[in-house]
């Protein structure tokens, strides 16, 4: 627990000095705030931009940041140093994972209030976000662990991130894409958000697809970890 807290603090400090990562956490909440307050289109659903940017935030930030942090540590050999300082792999992963999760959820606070959610609805909104962030984080960690360096991680994570971030938006305009998106967690995060916003009940299918996606992401992470390890 002590080592996990130290890793968390280290990550907080390091990310604060890493503009490329820092921007990932604030980009979509800031864009949502700007768009929500500056664009009004007739017949546009309430808080349309909040829903759209929340899903993009979920699909992009945890995935790219997890992959980037882990692959950078492998490339720069800082992970090796941590392991020799008796930090256990699980302590490291919990420290980094805890940081990425909480930083992404901080964006969720902004989205939640921009979307006008309160009470139980706000809690549900954060719960949906947490599920999506968990799936993206596990995928990002799998890519980070699998990759030898940051360049290799970026090469993999960029197309993956594009798919999960933008598929729900593209699915609104194209039926074929919508069919493909039906298997993807970010699409069902979007659908759950829509239901929450409209006050309609969520479908069990949404929860099942998200749960299956999280399980697959966790399995991919375990495979990557067993094959490549942390050093």
């Amino acid at each position, binding site marked *: 627990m002590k*080592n996990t807290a130290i890793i968390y603090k280290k990550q907080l400090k390091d990310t604060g000095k890493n503009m490329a990562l820092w921007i990932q956490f604030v980009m979509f909440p800031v864009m949502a705030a700007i768009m929500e307050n500056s664009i009004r289109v007739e017949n546009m659903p309430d808080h349309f931009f909040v829903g759209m940017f929340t899903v993009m935030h979920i699909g992009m930030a945890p995935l790219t940041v997890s992959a980037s942090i882990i692959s950078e540590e492998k490339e720069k050999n800082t992970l090796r140093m941590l392991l020799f300082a008796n930090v256990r792999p699980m302590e490291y992963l919990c420290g980094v994972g805890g940081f990425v999760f909480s930083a992404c959820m901080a964006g969720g606070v902004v989205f939640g209030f921009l979307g006008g959610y309160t009470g139980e609805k706000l809690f549900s909104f954060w719960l949906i976000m947490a599920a999506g962030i968990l799936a993206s984080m596990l995928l990002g960690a799998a890519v980070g662990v699998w990759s030898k360096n940051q360049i290799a991680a970026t090469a993999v994570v960029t197309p993956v991130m594009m798919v999960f971030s933008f598929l729900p938006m593209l699915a609104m305009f194209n039926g074929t894409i919508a069919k493909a998106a039906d298997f993807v967690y970010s699409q069902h995060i979007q659908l759950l958000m829509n239901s929450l916003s409209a006050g309609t009940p969520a479908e069990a299918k949404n929860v099942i697809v998200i749960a299956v996606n999280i399980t697959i992401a966790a399995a991919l992470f375990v495979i990557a970890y067993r094959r490549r390890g942390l050093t």
Partner: protein
Amino acid sequence: MTCETAIGIKEITHYFGEKKVLAGISFSVEKGEILGLLGPSGAGKTTLIRIVTGQLTPSTGSVSLEGNDMALVKQEAYRRIGMMMDDLGFYERLSCYDNLKLCAGFYEVREERIREVLEQVGLYQDRKCPVQKLSKGMKSRLALARAVLHGPEFLFLDEPTAGLDPATTRQIHELILQLQRDGATIFLTTHNMTEAEKLCKHVALLHEGQIVEYGAPQEINRRYNHRNKLKIRLYGGSSLELPNTAASAEEVCGYLQKGQIETIHSTEPDLESVFLELTGCSLQEED
């Protein structure tokens, strides 16, 4: 006087794929001594140090730390070990101080100790400087500071002064000797014979994965002193070589009495020459 074995290396052989990189390496390091593993690039020094520190499992053979199998005590042993190796990185965006503070947290070292070690390596004034802005010499000193932060009993230093300027090298040498005086057992690899002669009680010469010679540096040099002559340079520029025997005493005495001797040396070789004689290669050669 009996010498306590701190690190025991027994019959280590290691392969990378089909290639044999270490072949039956055996020697031991006494408690409190500095042992130098000397060899050119590619000789297998880093592989051996990685095996000894438990980062790599040897194909055959074993390493013991105070008689305990390293493979079994690795995790606990890391608290007693300090390492300065190229493949242990820094958080480049964080300051020198923050990098050490991170390690101090893991090792439960009081924060004042960070100041102590930064002062020892001459980096206290630069403590707030991000690591990415440090020169190579400063990074080496910071790596040494990190290696000694928790007061380890065993120190493993992989080419601690490679590529450094003479002033930084001297500072690092002084610190290594101070650590030894404080009781640390130090295992260092180098291809610098002057460094080995200056610091090490024993050296092991490694060539193509095999120990070709082992012993105290001066003892090795004496053992290979085949010429056994005295080289004398006289004022006026002339030089002469005399057999290092009683028969030359009178002649040498004569030069001394006349005050004609500018320099006088024995012809014993240095480790570089011994290595060359044994392997046909220079210690400075890249493989």
